[in-house]
């Protein structure tokens, strides 16, 4: 199992390197953003560009880029948004805002989602199931920004319960801050609840009809015992990796929700970098999102193996 995990990690690392190289070359191929003339920063940025080997072959540029990251954790300098500042420094500042919103949202949505899914599966083919399933279907179809508009209009504007945008500052655990991030948390939550509800319901329905459940009942377990000990545990083989994947995703943030509620997070930073053609920031965002995506997949894959002894994917092949 450890060998399999290591194999996967090494493989993912290679995939990551290839993707970063491709994005790197594609970004460097773009015409360089013009620097403001007669600005003291311009000279510094030009020296920086020279040092990063902007007129050398792309492979060499990539080598310099990687070397900078490995030796000095140097991701380059922002050229447009935060002129002259270290990109990584800017990026790290933006991380907590994204994380806090996603963390709160996940902390309450996963239990609720799973609970609803279990309820629907246990009451299969009753009105409870139909209601939950239909709502799940509807909620999962509608994009999260539609909820965001509704929440913003009803809760923030009409009822004036919450402020329109996220509060500034870095006091992430204060009450005022919490109040200001309730709307984005809600907007993000619907989709997650529906997703978990659907997965849990589908999985549990299947487990409940399997033969070992019949065996469990015939050997004398009560329905509750059989459900909790056998059905739920088996259904979590699928649900738990999804939770892990979701947790990796929290650092990524959501591009649109951050945009709507002005959350100063990485998603917003990425969009601003794209709009302002600040390529070094964009390069870091690209690497970051790629890494998150790959890591989430990796964690899901590996946790499957750890949770369920039947799935040892490495040993099968």
């Amino acid at each position: 199992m450890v060998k399999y995990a290591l194999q996967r990690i090494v493989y993912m690392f290679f995939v990551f390197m290839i993707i970063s190289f491709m994005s790197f070359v594609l970004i460097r191929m773009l015409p360089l953003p013009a620097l403001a003339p007669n600005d003291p920063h311009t000279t510094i940025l030009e020296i920086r560009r020279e040092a990063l080997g902007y007129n050398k072959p792309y492979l060499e540029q990539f080598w310099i880029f990687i070397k900078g990251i490995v030796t000095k954790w140097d991701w380059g300098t922002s050229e447009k948004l935060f002129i002259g500042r270290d990109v990584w420094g800017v990026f790290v500042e933006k991380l907590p805002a994204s994380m806090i919103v996603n963390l709160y949202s996940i902390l309450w949505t996963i239990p609720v989602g799973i609970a609803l899914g279990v309820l629907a599966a246990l009451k299969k083919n009753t009105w409870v199931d139909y209601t939950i399933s239909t709502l799940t279907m509807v909620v999962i179809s509608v994009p999260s920004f539609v909820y965001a508009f509704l929440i913003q209009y009803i809760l923030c504007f009409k009822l004036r319960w919450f402020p329109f945008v996220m509060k500034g500052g870095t006091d992430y655990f204060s009450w005022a801050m919490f109040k200001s991030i309730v709307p984005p948390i809600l907007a993000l939550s619907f989709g997650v609840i529906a997703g978990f509800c659907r997965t849990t319901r589908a999985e549990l329905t299947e487990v409940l009809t399997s033969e070992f459940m019949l065996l469990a009942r015939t050997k004398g377990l009560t329905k509750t015992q059989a459900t909790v000990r056998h059905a739920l545990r088996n259904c979590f083989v699928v649900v738990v990796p999804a939770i892990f994947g979701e947790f990796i995703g929290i650092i990524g943030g959501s591009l649109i929700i951050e945009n709507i509620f002005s959350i100063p997070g990485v998603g917003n930073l990425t969009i601003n970098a794209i709009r302002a053609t600040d390529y070094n920031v964009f390069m870091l965002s690209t690497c970051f999102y790629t890494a998150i995506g790959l890591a989430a997949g990796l964690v899901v894959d590996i946790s499957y193996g750890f949770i369920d002894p039947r799935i040892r994917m490495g040993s099968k092949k």
Partner: protein
Amino acid sequence: MEERIEYEKIPAEKFRFVQENEKLHDKELQTKARGFFADAMIRFGKNKSSVIAAWILLALVVFSILSPIISQYSIWDKDPMYLNYAPYVPSVAKMGIGILDGASVYNSQNDAQLYYWRGIAEETGMDPIIRTVREHETVTRHRGKDVVRTTLDIEINNYYAMGILYRTLTYSEFEEIQKWQNETGIQVIFPYVEQKDIEGITDNPNLWYRVDSRGVAIPDENGDLVPVYSTRTEMQGKPYNSIRIPSDPGNYIYSFAKSGALQCRILYYNYYIYKNGHEPSYIMGTNAVGQDIFCGIGVGARFSILFAIFVSAINLTIGAIYGSLQGYYGGWVDMLLDRISDILSGVPFVVVTTLFQLHLAKRVGVVPSFLFAFVLTGWIGMAALTRRQFYRFKGQEFILAARTLGASDKRLMFKHIFPNGIGSIITSCALVIPGVIGSETSMTYLGIVDLSAFAGTTIGTLLSQGNAAVTTSPHAVLYPSIFLGLLMICFNLFGNGLRDAFNPSTRGVDD
């Protein structure tokens, strides 16, 4: 009582041939043969929610086709003044039933503002005030006395509330408008008010009465507004021979000379009729750039749906071929192709879109480069699905039989295996379409892709324009949201129904 038959000893003459003089052959089947698709359609018809979704979907598609045709406006008509204005249809508004009257609520209006609305109503004959929503009474202490101030929340017809604007007209325009006024009897040009008479206020063309320096009306002792129209005929730019306002004694001037042109006070509502030939009429209001939202939704949805179908078709083709190769050959081909799709699927979509836009948009256009971004990673799901189907079928006996009979690889793949897996492949396509619409809307919402030059507008663009003014004009974000939400729900329900119909074995299981 029947005669008892002894079955052991039936006499020989009782036996006869069943078909002595007939040909012995199978009877032709009396029932109609039912194919795979017909069968699936019958199953689909039993799924009520999917059928309803399909009808709503059809309605939405018809809406998106018809609304740009029905609308009086094209998507390129951008009114410069009516921005983010609420839904308004003149004929419905006149019935006064509270819908489509271009209204929005103005909070805490005091006497000074009421005089302003009254000024517009008296001059133009169009009363912007629809009704009073609420009255507030606040008691403040002013110089030792309790003073009760009443403020009102009133509903204002925005289209009437715009009132009068300053416009600089050329001499010929001025003549034309006069001619038009004489023909139709609708007054566009109103008497000029010199700014020195309204305390030097330059940014409020709706003032035609005596005001103080803050622009608040100073009424006479009867509470009426005191007109201060200019009568300095020497400043008149051009003589005026058309409709005059009723209170005009005949010496008001209607234009003001301004270096080779004329400055006039025009009533925008009537000027709009003069320009467009009809009253402003926006069923769903206007957006931030003055487009008709009713038309905009149709245009945007039309693009979204067509684009999504096109993308799905391309992805289906690529994915099916790629997955077939993977699944059929297996081994190192499978592994190599799998690595490629692993790498491509690892690239975040927003990065792909951005890079394609930055690199290709100038060379091949915005839409093709957006399409490439979707195609680059979109086929992977389809390929994985096809690959699974191939693994499922390729080891079965009928394939072995076909191979033994000498069928080529190509024939085996596309005549024998692929048709068996086509059900699940087609149905996943129905679920790919809403996904593409969702991503497309997100990207245009974020402004990473700007399709407004090509398509006029998109749902995403409408939403982002509406979101900027969600408090003052919620309609601008409401209608596109409703449309998008309905579209997505219906597509998903429809797709799920199709999937259940094509794969009865996986009913209720979401993969």
